[in-house]
């Protein structure tokens, strides 16, 4: 039996060898005692310090580990491995500059150190120096092809470079070497999300969690998969699974802000981002998330400051910070500055799809514009591979070709972009049709027969709902109303939708709602918007889809006014089809489904018109408003019970945030060019027109305003 001899009798070399052997076997106490013995004789001895550092690291004490390793690395002839280990620990601590310096020293000392190249490769990747990272990691894989971690790391860098097919190849190589490699599975999940395969992505993430339930990234990637198909609730569920055991996980806090913003839980989103910033003040992505929350809250200056802060920090947040800054400028109407901002992004990141996408929205392309060729080039194989990026690029290009007069190429891109987008989700037009019909059935005329049809408290004038199809002119109407001194524009709020969702399935719950139940809905809504109303008399919520709730609004808020904006069916649908919406408008990505949805919407509106009293609900035709502005504007203001304010005429000068797909149009004075616009594209819109029951769409006339007034509505309204 070998027993440890008394320590004073052994040489320093023996003590160190034994310390290593003990630590190898996980006997930390014995190893530490031997190291302390060495360090007592020779303070700062490199090998003992190094081993102490490795042990501190294994027990999760990173700062102490780094201290030990720094001491070890002060030795004049320090082994390259020690520097390489120091580099990796600094990376884990987020100290990228120190990490890179140590990593470079390591391979300068020993050019053949595989682990050194590997560690430096990850550090450079985290620092956003992808090309250099690639060189390091390709080196490692060449030196040691059966090194699963290196295959995985190389794949990560390739993925960052947008070379998704090659990335997948190396993840799969890693998994062939180690089939239970949870990190590689988790990364493969994220790759699948990028490629638009959310189901696959979830399967990989689940497998990774099954192997290692504490692997935080796998939860983040599962959340990303759900987020990619717009499923906010499931996204939150995955993040909360992670935060339940790692409440301070920065990535988790950041991912959480996205669904919270979508669900209009803006204060919670800001709170999560704040916590992340407090925990990791040098994390650029945390500042970006905070900027996004502030932006959603309408605090533009604070948001811009957060983006500028993020852009100054090392790491991967720069592109997003710069793009978001541009969007922010766009929202407050600083179009020139926004354009400059996007061009700046493209100078640094020529493949930034979000920059191209936003830029294409604010600029008007001329034939032969070099930007068009630049975007087309990005669609070539082996360039932009992420599904969502390719979709956005198709929409941007379609817009560009349309601007420059090449309808055929434009529609090639519209059709392809829409087709790819449509493939990312399930949608059943029949079910939607039955659902809208059931909403009408839930509010028969008898419900409103009572003279006192509303049951809420009437002491508050606030709510005005501007409803209709997306792209029908709701933004314009809100902008006109909000120019009035006593009206606050609130943008598109999901508030009412969330209140109803919390109560139960709509419209099935309507039957069970008592007068008090309706009143409670109204009170919740008014309590919320009062905090946003800036002490004005009226508050406009222009969420178009609130048309689904017109009856419920009338029942729960007697003082509410509902303005329905109507626009020519073909023009509306054409406009929807040309837009890639940020929030889901699932009906909008297939011409036939779009037409069917329009018909369903139209018949529900006909129902509301027939049952709601005229002092609660009015229609305004977009074409009338554009063609004969002031009388229509006066009619709307009077409908709100307000006296006329000339500021409404100059609505486009009103400085406020606009955050919809129409934001760059509401900034312009009235224009009639979008009336009868679809007519020009009849050859491309066959399935839409068939679904709408329209044989022919008249072309925009020479005097568009007048012609527009006469623009035909769909032939017949379906009688129910």
């Amino acid at each position: 039996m070998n027993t440890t001899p008394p320590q004073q009798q052994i040489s320093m070399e023996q003590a160190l060898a034994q310390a290593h052997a003990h630590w190898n076997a996980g006997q930390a106490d014995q190893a530490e005692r031997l190291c302390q013995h060495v360090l007592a004789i020779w303070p700062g001895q490199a090998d003992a310090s190094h081993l102490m550092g490795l042990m501190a690291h294994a027990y999760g004490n990173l700062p102490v580990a780094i201290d030990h390793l720094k001491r070890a690395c002060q030795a004049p002839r320090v082994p390259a491995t020690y520097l390489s280990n120091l580099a990796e620990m600094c990376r884990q601590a987020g100290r990228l500059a120190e990490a890179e310096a140590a990593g470079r020293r390591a391979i300068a000392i020993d050019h053949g150190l595989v682990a050194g190249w590997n560690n430096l490769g990850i550090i450079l990747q985290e620092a956003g120096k992808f090309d250099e990272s690639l060189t390091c990691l390709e080196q490692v894989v060449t030196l040691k092809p059966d090194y699963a971690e290196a295959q995985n790391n190389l794949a990560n860098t390739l993925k960052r470079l947008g070379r998704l097919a090659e990335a997948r190849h190396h993840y799969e190589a890693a998994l062939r070497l180690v089939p239970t490699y949870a990190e590689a599975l988790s990364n493969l999940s994220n790759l699948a999300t990028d490629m638009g395969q959310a189901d696959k992505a979830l399967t990989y993430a689940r497998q990774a969690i099954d192997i290692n339930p504490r692997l935080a990234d796998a939860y983040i990637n599962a959340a990303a998969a759900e987020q990619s198909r717009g499923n906010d609730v499931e996204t939150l569920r995955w993040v909360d699974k992670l935060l339940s055991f790692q409440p301070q996980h920065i990535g988790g806090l950041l991912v959480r802000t996205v669904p919270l913003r979508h669900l209009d839980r803006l204060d919670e989103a800001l709170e999560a981002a704040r916590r992340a910033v407090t925990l990791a003040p040098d994390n650029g992505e945390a500042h970006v998330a905070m900027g996004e929350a502030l932006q959603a809250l309408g605090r533009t200056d604070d948001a811009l400051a957060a983006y500028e802060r993020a852009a100054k920090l090392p790491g991967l947040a720069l592109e997003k910070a710069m793009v978001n800054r541009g969007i922010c400028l766009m929202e407050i109407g600083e179009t020139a500055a926004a354009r400059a901002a996007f061009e700046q992004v493209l100078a640094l990141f020529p493949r930034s799809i979000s920059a191209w996408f936003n830029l294409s929205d604010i600029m008007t392309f001329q034939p032969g514009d070099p930007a068009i060729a630049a975007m087309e080039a990005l669609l070539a194989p082996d360039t932009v591979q992420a599904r969502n990026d390719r979709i956005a690029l198709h929409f941007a290009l379609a817009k560009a070709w349309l601007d420059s007069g090449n309808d055929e190429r434009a529609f090639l891109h519209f059709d392809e972009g829409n087709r790819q987008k449509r493939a990312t989700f399930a949608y059943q037009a029949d079910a939607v049709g039955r659902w809208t019909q059931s909403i009408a059935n839930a509010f028969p005329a008898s419900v409103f027969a009572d003279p006192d049809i509303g049951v809420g408290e009437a002491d508050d004038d606030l709510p005005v709902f501007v409803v209709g199809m997306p792209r029908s002119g709701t933004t314009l109407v809100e902008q006109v109303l909000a120019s009035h001194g006593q009206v606050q524009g609130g943008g598109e709020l999901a508030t009412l939708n969330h209140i109803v969702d919390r109560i139960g399935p709509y419209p099935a719950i309507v039957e069970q709602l008592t007068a008090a139940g309706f009143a409670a809905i109204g009170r919740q809504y008014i309590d919320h918007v009062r905090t946003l109303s800036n002490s004005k008399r009226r508050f406009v919520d222009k969420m178009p889809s609130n048309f689904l709730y017109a009856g419920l609004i009338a029942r729960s808020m007697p003082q509410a006014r509902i303005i329905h904006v109507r626009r020519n069916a073909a023009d509306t649908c054409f406009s929807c089809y040309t837009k890639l919406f940020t929030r889901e408008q699932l009906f909008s990505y297939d011409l036939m489904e779009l037409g069917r949805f329009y018909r369903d919407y139209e018949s529900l509106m006909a129902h509301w018109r027939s049952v709601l009293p005229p002092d609660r609900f009015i229609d305004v035709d977009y074409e009338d408003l554009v063609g004969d502005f002031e009388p229509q504007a006066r009619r709307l203001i009077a409908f709100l019970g307000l006296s006329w304010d000339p500021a409404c005429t100059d609505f486009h000068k009103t400085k406020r945030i606009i955050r919809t797909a129409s934001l760059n149009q509401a900034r312009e004075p009235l224009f009639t060019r979008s009336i009868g616009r679809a007519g020009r594209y009849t050859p491309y819109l066959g399935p839409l027109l068939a679904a709408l029951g329209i044989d022919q769409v008249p072309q925009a006339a020479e005097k568009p305003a007048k012609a527009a007034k006469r623009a035909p509505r769909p032939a017949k309204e379906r009688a129910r």
Partner: protein
Amino acid sequence: MDSKDFEAKIQPLLVAGRGAEVEAMVTPLLANGGGPAPLWAALAQALRVQGRIADAAKIQEMLVEALPGHVSTRFDLAESLLLMGEFERGWREYSYRYSLNHTYRIERKVQRPRWDGRPIPGKVLLIHDEQGYGDTFQFMRMVSWAKARSGAQVVLEVNHETHSLASRMRGFDALTLRGELPPHFDVHCEMMSLPMVMGLKMSDLPGSIPYLTPDPDRVQHWRKRLAGVKGLKVAVVWAGRPTHFNDANRSMTLTALAPLAQEGVTFLSIQKGPSEGDVARPPPGMNIIGLSPEIRDFEDTAAILTVADLLISVDSSPVHLAGALARPAWVMLPFLPDWRWLMNREDTPWYPSVRLFRQPSWGNWQGLVQGMAKALADIRAAGPAGNRP
């Protein structure tokens, strides 16, 4: 009531085995299928203390599904699955025993990979034991299996107390002591991870029995020492190591064993630890000899078990020693026993020579001891020195 108050209210009830009351309190709060995870966990525990393990496991599986990163829930599930004999997933979830908040630091952070169960001829495999002596005795049988499966040179590392018993066992190439300078090795495996790594199935049990043997000199010594003892010689242990997390549930008192006292039976106390002195005040009519001060180590215990006709013991390491030696032993188990004893059976797949006596209801040692007294009378009537369990 906030969750802390609620916790404070139900914990004592659960410890007292009043699972039905907790179930009645919690169930209405979970009626709509929702509810916070800690409440569900409380319901699972309430079902467990009522012996409704399968019902509890269903809830625990749901919790693991909902919060996969919560390793303590996984460990709870492991205990339920193993208790039901569902080895495959049970061993897998059992691997989280060192990821709990209070166990993370005691995990041995071996700097070599864990053996994955595949053949590794020419390599050196270090198998090391963990905390409890009973665990070591129980899972030592797998060392030779691991050697056969891996084709490796096997180095077995055990603690000082079990070292000399292990040294007579077969199935490894070298033996080393915990804390000492270990020899070179390529891969390692904790002894209690062997079941997961090797995919241990119920049908693999018990394997070759006995796998431990007593020291012949010690047997000689104890045979002499106990030559004058009349009648059936029954070694007895009534308390486990008091620091065991579940000791209150598994340990009892010598007094509670009073009904076992009968003509023709001599009890041999091999109780170690704080309660070994109880032997000075035996229940009336109990013929008992205190051997504890003479027991130096497990070699003495093994020799006594070899000489004695029977061991009667609570769930503690001598039971495993007796089982591994193929000596008869009767185990007194709490209503909700440790996972290794399964539920609702008198025998155990681990040890053919061991018979299980279970509390008929929570904390009911009395009912158990009465049943055991009858069984003891039966074998006494059948004649002395029977080797039947």
